[in-house]
């Protein structure tokens, strides 16, 4: 598989030359494969937001480079602008960026900026709305009349409508209730399956990313602390806790079970995997 994103020795320093100067990210390097789901975790101030804003060229690196399909996004002006559309970025609380009169127009904002034809825009809006779970009846409504959860879906559709090869979500479920959270994550999952897009998701909720990500990138103080599959990452639960992150509840339960002396794998993070392991201990058959 080919690396669709390659981040090379990326550094970003804010407020250079003032007393507030500080390094947000330092010497970050990693690649993302086409079609992969990469979870990015780290607590507030770990550099997550700074990192993702480099991937579509919103922030210019102090040093280092970002390559999309092997080509630097800073090669020339057109390439930088194209990066905006190739990498869709859904910010935290994206519902606060809605501004158009109707939901349809708001979702169409990105495609319009791409200079697409009317018919193409229309098709994309409908497709994106469906993927994001925006009700067709809402399209002619004002986005400000929708509920909070629906607004967020509209904002997500607005990014998906650009049909980017890579979509980055920054805390897409922040502030949602459990039912809305679950349903939104299902939408994201289905979208990826249907389009084969590469997805990155920033979160501090381990339970969310653990279930969906192929690999996890753990950031701490602007540097990569760990990079690996969820099982590999959660095996080092203590290290995660030291840098202020939590592990999924199932993992902490299994860590404790292992401590108590049961032969279980502490790198378990789903309820199903947990059940399978426990049942295996009983030789498959339960006590019935």
């Amino acid at each position, binding site marked *: 598989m080919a690396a669709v994103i390659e981040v090379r020795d990326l550094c970003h320093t804010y407020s250079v030359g003032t007393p507030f100067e500080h390094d947000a990210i330092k010497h970050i390097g990693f690649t993302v494969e086409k079609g992969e789901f990469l979870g990015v975790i780290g607590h507030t101030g770990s550099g997550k937001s700074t990192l993702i804003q480099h991937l579509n060229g919103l922030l210019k690196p102090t040093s280092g480079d970002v390559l999309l399909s092997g080509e630097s996004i800073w090669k020339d002006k057109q390439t930088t602008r194209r990066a905006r559309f190739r990498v869709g970025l859904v910010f935290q609380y994206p519902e606060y960026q809605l501004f158009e009169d109707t939901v349809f127009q708001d979702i169409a904002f990105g495609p319009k900026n791409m200079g697409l034809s009317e018919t193409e825009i229309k098709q994309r809006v409908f497709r994106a709305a469906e993927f994001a779970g925006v009700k067709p009846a809402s399209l002619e409504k004002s986005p400000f009349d929708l*509920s909070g959860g629906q607004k967020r879906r509209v904002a997500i559709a607005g990014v998906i409508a650009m049909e980017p090869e890579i979509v980055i979500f920054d805390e897409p479920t922040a502030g949602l209730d459990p039912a809305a959270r679950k349903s939104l994550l299902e939408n994201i999952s289905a979208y990826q399956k249907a389009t084969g897009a590469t997805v990155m998701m920033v979160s501090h909720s381990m339970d969310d990313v653990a279930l969906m990500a192929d690999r996890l990138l753990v950031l701490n103080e602007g540097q990569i602390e760990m990079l690996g599959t969820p099982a590999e990452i959660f095996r080092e639960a203590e290290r995660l806790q030291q840098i202020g992150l939590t592990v999924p509840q199932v993992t902490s339960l299994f860590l404790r079970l292992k401590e108590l002396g049961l032969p279980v794998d502490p790198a378990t993070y789903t309820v199903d995997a947990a059940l399978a392991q426990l*049942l295996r201990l009983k030789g498959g058959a*339960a006590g019935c």
Partner: protein
Amino acid sequence: MGNAVSVQELLFSYPSQNGTPHCVFDGLNVNIEEGSFVAVLGHNGSGKSTFAKQCNAILLPEGGSVQVFGMDTKDEALLLDIRRTVGMVFQNPDNQMVANVVEEDVAFAPENLGVPSEEIRRRVDDALRAVGMYEYRIHAPHLLSGGQKQRIAIAGVIAMQPRCVVLDEPTAMLDPIGREDVMRIVEKLNRENGITVILITHHMTEAIRADRVIVMKEGRILTDGTPKEVFTQVDLLKSAGLDVPATTQIIYELNRQGFDLPLDALSTEECAQALYEQFKVEA
């Protein structure tokens, strides 16, 4: 002990755009005992935030009554007394800070109440120490983290010396560290200072820490009891669109497979012990 909040036959609706009012409560009855720590769960639109705002007369009943420490919220003469007795913390810490210096913000409520300067100083310092933010007293709030801001908001309420604090999803916008800090302070307020706490949340892991859990759905109380009583009703919770803790889910599933494990082993430790007892023999 008496009731901190006593809701009787509460009727309330919001006006909606097409004219027909949207009914939130149609005869709600609930009592919150003084000194207790109650978590109110429910998904968005279940009426839990409206309930919170009824507790200190930000919203008033259209029918029935809400009494806080024996004061009727409809009695306008008692308004300030009610609000000083029942403090309120909201979800977005940014939108509840008034001043651009931490200590001035914490002083806001006592200043409004006409407390003498020396007394305000003492209350502000005490409140900031209680939430562990004393060192930040002359900082500007916008430079603090979400968790720190929320702790300042709590300090601002403590400075009123309330008997009850209502927190409306105080951790929804925070990261895990901020969340834990806030929860620890909330627990301390209840256990050490005897302040009645009403915590509106949709995080099960937070609700488990309360003495009592009330689950709301469409303006009605779906179930009400100790965390153990409530979280063992897995099917009911799922029908209300709520999650159950992963620990409960594991035990629930195992029991369906024929095991006999205690469903009320809610905390990770309790659950681990129960599983260990069950599985150690053959291990």
